[in-house]
């Protein structure tokens, strides 16, 4: 199987879904319409043997239309071929169908993408934040989020007054023991 076969299979089967194909440094990239991504992934897994979902990640293009990008890196373990799918969604409606039912490994990848960019994956069984705390109010990898962070967004542990006292250690040592 080579790239031409993949291109012909996908473009003949999903003529509506595939927006464009691109080849750069021997890597094949398909731009897919968001609503068709699950069908394309199912076809790739069942018919073309892309059984390992290497990675799913988001990207912020920081443009007015179709701001967020979700990138799927797939690997065919039988024939050792890699391809890449890309989906673009707008900031006003960042919803992409989840592919957890196709590859289970997508579970945490999609959670990470949601955590970092706020792209909501519809049909995901457990869409929680994975790295940041649950009550964090921002999406940190978006370009508008400053590198230095936002003061007050993550609560720091409170300093105990007893620990601040200079002679706390001595007082502790001088305590009467039973």
């Amino acid at each position: 199987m080579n790239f031409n076969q993949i291109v012909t299979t996908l473009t003949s089967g999903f003529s509506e879904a595939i927006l464009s194909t691109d080849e750069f440094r021997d890597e094949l990239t398909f731009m897919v319409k968001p609503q068709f991504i699950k069908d394309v992934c199912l076809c790739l897994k069942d018919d073309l043997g892309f059984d390992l979902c290497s990675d799913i990640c988001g990207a912020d293009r920081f443009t007015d239309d179709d701001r967020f990008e979700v990138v799927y890196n797939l690997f065919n373990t039988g024939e050792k071929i890699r391809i890449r799918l890309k989906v673009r969604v707008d900031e006003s409606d960042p919803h992409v169908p989840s592919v957890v039912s196709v590859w289970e490994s997508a579970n945490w990848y999609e959670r990470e993408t949601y955590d970092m960019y706020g792209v909501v994956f519809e049909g995901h069984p457990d869409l929680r934040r994975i790295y940041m705390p649950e009550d964090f109010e921002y999406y940190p990898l978006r370009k508008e989020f400053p590198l230095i962070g936002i003061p007050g967004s993550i609560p720091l542990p409170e300093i105990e007054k007893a620990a601040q006292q200079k002679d706390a250690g001595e007082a502790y040592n001088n305590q009467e023991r039973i």
Partner: protein
Amino acid sequence: MIKHSSVDVVCGFEQLRKPTLKPKERKRYRKKIYEVLEDRDTTIIMDDDDPLEQRMVLNMGPQHPATHGVLRVVLELDGEHVTKAVPELGYLHRAMEKLAENKSYHEFMPYTDRLDYMSPYSNNTALCLAVEKLAGIEVPERATYIRTIACELARISSHLLSIGALVMDTGAISVFLWTFEERERLYDIFDLMTGARFTISHCRVGGVASDFSKDCVQAIVSWLKAFKPKIEEWRKLLDRNRIFIERLESVGVISAEDALQIGFSGPNLRASGVDVDLRRDEPYMAYSDFEFEVPILENGDSYARYLIRMQEMEQSIRIIEQALRNLPKGDVRTDDAKRAFPWKDEIYHSMEGLIHDFMMTDTGIELPKGEIYHAIEAPKGELGFYIQSDGKGMPWRLKIRSPSFCNLQALSKLCEGSMIADVVIIIGSIDPVMGEADK
């Protein structure tokens, strides 16, 4: 679910809205969880009408010696059996990818050392290979050989820790001490090779920072000679040790299909019987020049995952020996001022060299626009770098596909139905490093 915050304009500057929750409110919001966790020694009894207190939720970690870092696993127990296990990440999250977007590729190199800190050299090379693929830089042959040797040494170092810690998890301390003795010697070799023992940052885009010295090659050769009988000795002790086998066999079994589904890679995937090794399948660096076998085991249990690491170390020794025998002569960095750092001699003795060094440090490498994904076979599995470049010295987006993150995802599947004592073994056998899983 919190809605996306809008942008405010303060004093003419756009900035993100301040957090809506005040610290006090936030504390109240979290208080319930804290109270439940603090009250009963991190144990929550689930049912009120369960007089024997059979079913409970147990927090394992984040500070637990068997979790190999700051992994937290929430276990739902029925007596001693695990009915549900949910790993929680984020305790070592350092925003690597956000930092990468604000640094040039060379500036980001030391951060990759801190990803999988058991094998920093693999991470350095993974980043360099990705950047070289994007820029289309040819690396001199000697440099690729040096990288290959160092990567295999890093693999041995990582597997040594993994095996030592796994055997210690089963309750035997001595193997851990022996493997750490060898790791100490490996650190000495890395010191001779790169000038640093732990976080080495030795790779450069277009080559490596310094050539091998004679002492270094001699040290590697003599260490290999001493190390080979030691592996045999350990295998004699462990491979057919009845206590060890009974502790590991058929613990945390995963089939080949499930392993692929859940995103396993590296030794863990090969222990389940899937024949994937990127060193052989997508030969990068100098791996196509060497003869080596890829060990495959079928069982998919913890014992297979242990055994495959032992066998891989033997293959790594073979690769290093072949590489040292055929080490080519020549340059160790590409001679292109727009793509690679100049040598220190040039910087000190010529104005052009100084300018090149300044430009490389200030603006970084000139890269074309585009995006690539390059993966290598790191000791833990497939370590990939996905880079989107907008033609500047810094990446627009850099995603790290870290093997530990993907391997850890299988933890809940492996643990469900097993005994609570086996959870420690399973974590040890899939060998996660939290620096990499949390990024």
